[in-house]
């Protein structure tokens, strides 16, 4: 009967191996710069000495391609374009020089996937919302966003003077954008909106007449009409809705230990007028666009 015991022994071995593997795989603490608990209490914002992913460097993520007017020529490291300029201003505020900033390509969805992040913060026109705060941490807002409608010149949509006039149109927006929320929650159109992966496709659909009008944030709308779809115009913008003004924030890991420092840096830049100056330099003036009601 010695042979008959073989499966049992095998099973025992397998169980032991499984348990060993389980113990072996028991994940280590993943936050950079030591045990997570140590940093939870107080954050040290010593200039240039934050608990970053790479020591002495600030790693910043953004999607590729990086769109104008937020970045220029798809080159975040150039320092030109609003978000690139804001990033370098934040870095300087935190004590990191221009050559201490490393850029990393982070697709939109990866910025909020759980697990270890490869960036210290991600800058990608991400609007702050309570639901999103359950998944990631945000710095305070660095830009107040307005949504805008763009349509081909002379089209039916271009004559829309009110939100009600937009209701009967085929509208388009990018997935994961607050523009899409505005369509669904504020405009509530008769036909379901067309939703696109990238704003490039949204623009093609507008050019081809597959949608009547598209929604983007206002600076993007200006850029589209001035540089990309020249026979289109900005029809109108949406009013900010009081207290819950939409703002772009820098995205950080929920467990990040530098959120407080980054927020303090953004707040300081807003206070000393840097953000306003950068906005003026890189983003067009919004005053000329009528507000839709």
């Amino acid at each position, binding site marked *: 009967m010695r042979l008959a015991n073989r*499966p*049992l022994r095998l*099973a025992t071995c*397998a*169980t032991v191996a*499984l*348990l060993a593997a*389980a113990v072996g*795989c*028991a*994940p280590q*603490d*993943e936050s950079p710069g030591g045990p997570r608990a140590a940093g939870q209490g107080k954050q040290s914002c010593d200039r240039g000495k934050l608990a970053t992913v790479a020591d002495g460097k600030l790693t910043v993520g953004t999607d590729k391609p990086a769109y104008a007017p937020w970045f220029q020529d798809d080159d975040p490291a150039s320092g030109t374009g609003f978000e690139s300029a804001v990033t370098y201003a934040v870095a300087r505020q935190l004590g990191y020089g221009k050559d201490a900033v490393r850029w990393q390509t982070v697709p*939109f*969805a990866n910025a*909020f*996937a*759980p*697990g270890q992040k490869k960036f210290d913060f991600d800058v990608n026109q991400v609007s702050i*919302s309570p*639901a*999103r705060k*359950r*998944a*990631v941490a945000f710095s305070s807002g660095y830009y107040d966003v307005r949504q805008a409608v763009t349509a081909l010149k002379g089209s039916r949509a271009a004559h829309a003077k009110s939100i009600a006039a937009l209701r009967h149109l085929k509208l*388009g927006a990018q*997935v*994961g*954008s607050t523009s*899409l*929320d505005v369509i669904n929650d504020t405009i509530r159109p008769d036909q*379901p*909106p*067309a*939703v*696109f*992966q990238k704003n490039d*496709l*949204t623009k*093609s*659909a507008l*050019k*081809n*007449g*597959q*949608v009547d009008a598209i929604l983007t944030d206002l600076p993007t709308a200006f850029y589209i009409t001035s540089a990309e779809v020249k026979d289109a115009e900005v029809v109108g913008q949406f009013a900010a809705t009081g207290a819950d003004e939409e703002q772009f924030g820098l995205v950080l890991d*929920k467990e990040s230990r530098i959120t407080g420092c980054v927020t303090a840096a953004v707040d300081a830049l807003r206070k000393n007028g840097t953000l306003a100056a950068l906005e003026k330099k890189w983003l067009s003036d919004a005053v000329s666009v009528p507000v839709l009601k």
Partner: protein
Amino acid sequence: MTYGEGVSKLRTARDGADGGPVDRADDGYVPSKRRIERERFRRARTRRATTVAALSTLVTAAVLYLVITRSPGWPRTRETFFSAEYAAKALPKVLEGLLLNLRLLVVCGAAVLVLGLLLAVARTLRGPVFFPLRALAAAYTDFFRGLPLIICLLMVVFGVPALRLQGVTTDPVLLGGSALVLTYSAYVAEVFRAGIESVHPSQRAAARSLGLSSGQALRFVVLPQAVRRVVPPLLNDLVSLQKDTGLVSIAGAVDAVYAAQIIAGRDFNFTPYVVAGLVFVALTIPMTRGTDWITARMDRRRAQGGLV
């Protein structure tokens, strides 16, 4: 009672193959002591094997459960991928999107089968007069089988409306559906061609010698056998098509996966993807079982009168 059933019934009665009690009333057969002992031993071994299997399954499940739930990221993972709140929020939208997938699957599936079969027949036609047809069909399958589907979709969905032709639709669903048909009919044509070529030449020769024309031989002798042989690979392509119908969303139409992505993008939660994934799996399983059933029925019919 067919011959086959009779044989198996006899066998069961004689040696109690299932290890169950042996029927002694019929023919006065009394099993020997040794035989009873042997059966008891076998039953004991079976019980033991079942117990061991159950135990080892339980242990494996427990270890997996512990490994997953004890991992430090588990609370975040559960909240992000398995949140009941978001699942409830996503399901209605996902099902709404699924309607688009199903419509595309049915319409494109039918078009793909017809076009694929026509292409395959065109490629297997004999005779010099058909050379241009054969060459065209070969070029078509070579091109569209090689062209990545996503590029085909982008070209058709955004390229065709850019031409601004009168009377040509700009509807992303229609255009996307045509792109799917273009690509998948090339795949399916190759499957059909393999089926047609797998029918032994003697079949065609026999059909011709019975006086059937070339066309009749194809229609009544070759094709029925060819189609039967390629049902499983055809189902593969159909399941693949079912998943790829979602790619039509590149043009802005909202299918099940895209509905999930919209919610995931807005609230930064991945649960809607899990919901959409499960819905697709739930759709594929009955399809597979259905084809298995059809294949089995075909085999049964072919094997009427029992297997030799």
